[in-house]
């Protein structure tokens, strides 16, 4: 796909689910490579395996067969605890429903992944405040999620995802629950993280407007790789 180093390498990956006594093949011997430092959108109809692939790449689920090399690690070789440590060090997640911890403030939510690092309390504070500043919500750091709008919650979730400075950000329909204005702010933020901080971003979406913010659009259909489109930088949402 390019001359850059591969951040994600999916080789012959198959994932099946049992549902009502029936076996559903969600991903079927999928092969895919994604470069470091690029912004990808993963599109496809419902049931095409987008979220399943995202979960496998993020180490949240395991493939039935095939290999996944992500951020220099063969995920099949990692134990449960090993995968947890790998996630903490390499991946930031952004979910459609924001998934902030409701009993913690914005700052405490962002600080949470930093507690898995050897950083001191003062350093954690510095990192968390920087992440919140990056998403423009430092002034709301003591607010609980229910005191924030949907767009603000998602920006806090992005701050949490980048607080530990991971190489890879995986976003599952990050604009799915947002109005257009908030969605554009989130997409702009993701674009900025890619451009300025060289984060590799993989965003699942079925919204063409959101996908236009990415540099590449990967299409999945019935668990198999479809076409790959490359956007011009100018197409990215501002």
């Amino acid at each position, binding site marked *: 796909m390019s001359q850059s180093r591969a951040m994600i390498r999916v080789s012959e990956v198959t994932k099946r689910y049992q549902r009502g006594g029936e076996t559903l093949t969600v991903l079927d011997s999928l092969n895919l490579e994604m470069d470091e430092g690029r912004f990808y959108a993963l599109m496809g109809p419902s049931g095409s395996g987008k979220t399943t692939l995202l979960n496998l790449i993020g180490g949240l689920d395991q493939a039935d067969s095939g290999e996944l090399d992500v951020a220099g690690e063969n995920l099949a070789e990692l134990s449960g605890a090993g995968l947890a440590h790998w996630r903490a060090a390499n991946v930031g997640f952004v979910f459609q429903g924001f998934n902030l911890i*409701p009993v913690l403030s914005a700052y405490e939510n962002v600080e949470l992944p930093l507690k*898995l690092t050897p950083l001191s309390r003062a350093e954690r504070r510095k990192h968390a405040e920087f992440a919140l500043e990056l998403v423009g919500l430092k002034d709301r750091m003591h607010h609980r999620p229910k005191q924030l709008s949907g767009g603000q919650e998602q920006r806090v979730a992005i701050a*949490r995802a980048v607080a530990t400075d991971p190489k890879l950000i995986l976003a599952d329909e990050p604009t799915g629950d947002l109005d257009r204005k908030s969605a554009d702010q989130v997409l702009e933020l993701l674009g900025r993280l890619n451009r300025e901080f060289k984060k590799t971003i993989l965003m699942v979406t079925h919204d063409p407007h959101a996908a236009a913010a990415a540099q590449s659009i990967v299409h999945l259909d019935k668990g198999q790789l479809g076409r790959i489109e490359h956007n011009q930088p100018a197409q990215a949402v501002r």
Partner: protein
Amino acid sequence: MMASFKLVWRNLTRRPLRSVLTVASIVVAVFLICSLRTLITTIRAGVENADSRRLAVMSATGLFVEMPMKYQAEINKIPGVELTTKFQWFGGYYRSQKNFFAQFAIDPDTMFAMYPECQVPPEQIEAFRTNRTSCLIGEVLAQKFDWKPGDTIPIIGALHPHPDDKAWEFQVAGVYHSSVPNFDNQTMFFHWDYYEETLKESGPMPGVGVFSIRVDKGADVPRVIADVEEAFQDSEQRVDCVTEAEFQRQFVTMFGNIPLFVGWIGSGVVLAILLACINTMLMSMREQTAEIGVLKSLGFTDGSMFGLLLVQALVLCGLGGGLGILFAWATSGPVAEQLGAMFPGYRIHPETYGLAVIITVGIGLVAGLVPAWSARSLRCVQALRGTD
């Protein structure tokens, strides 16, 4: 690594009413455990602290059946008997039945020699000896009714009504202090002579409820017991003679096997509170399912999720247990006052507090184990969907 204590605390307080009710139920349970356990230890202390040289003689028919007064002289003749004294349960009350406390007619000449643990200032003993209608009261009784030497106490004789159909009147001659836990501080002792002479005016000579015996040093106690029982084998009233320890045990268990009964209640309380705590923790875990998925996606391990839920249960139970222990400690005085007549020396021992701590931690561990294991076993994607 566990997420943080702040998260544990916030999770516990996200449903304040539920947490408060759960903590309150643990408080009540721990208070009951401490109180019930103390009833058992008090019974045992009474038995363990009993004087091995003292025996009690009562009617073989039952504790409330009187024996003829002439038995005392015959008991005194039995080899090995050093001293005897007599008691009669009066069963009266002060003003109303809710002011009930124990009163005994006694013989002052032998009572204090028999019970040196009943400590009274010499001048008050002398005042008691010389005034036939006087009485001695325990210090707790004195505090409870604000009685002091010189006061006159009217007692309505429920079992032994006054011949003139009025209250019996007793002048307080002194206040005694018990130096041992199994001789209670809430009893009134008055002159046998006053009791006997007053009742003789209207009816037959009153009998004796219990004779206390002190045996000679080195006496063969089983032999003396057998001799006492043998002495009245063919008399109008056969007797049972038992050690003081056995008498105390029989007295507190005359309504049944109290330790067994109390043990069953205690076990039921622990089981009920355990089920309530498990239910609370399972509901709490269900609410946190999606958040457990988020924490796992951030890199928190299965083990740390296990710890998070377990610590939540331990903090919840620890809080309830701690407050329960505090409540039991703070109320032990009034409870002892209420139960003193039946359970003299009621006092919560450190071992009982220790048992309450162990039970509290045990409930916390068991209640936390099921949700903690569920949280540990949850697959990340499953948890993120909010299904357990």
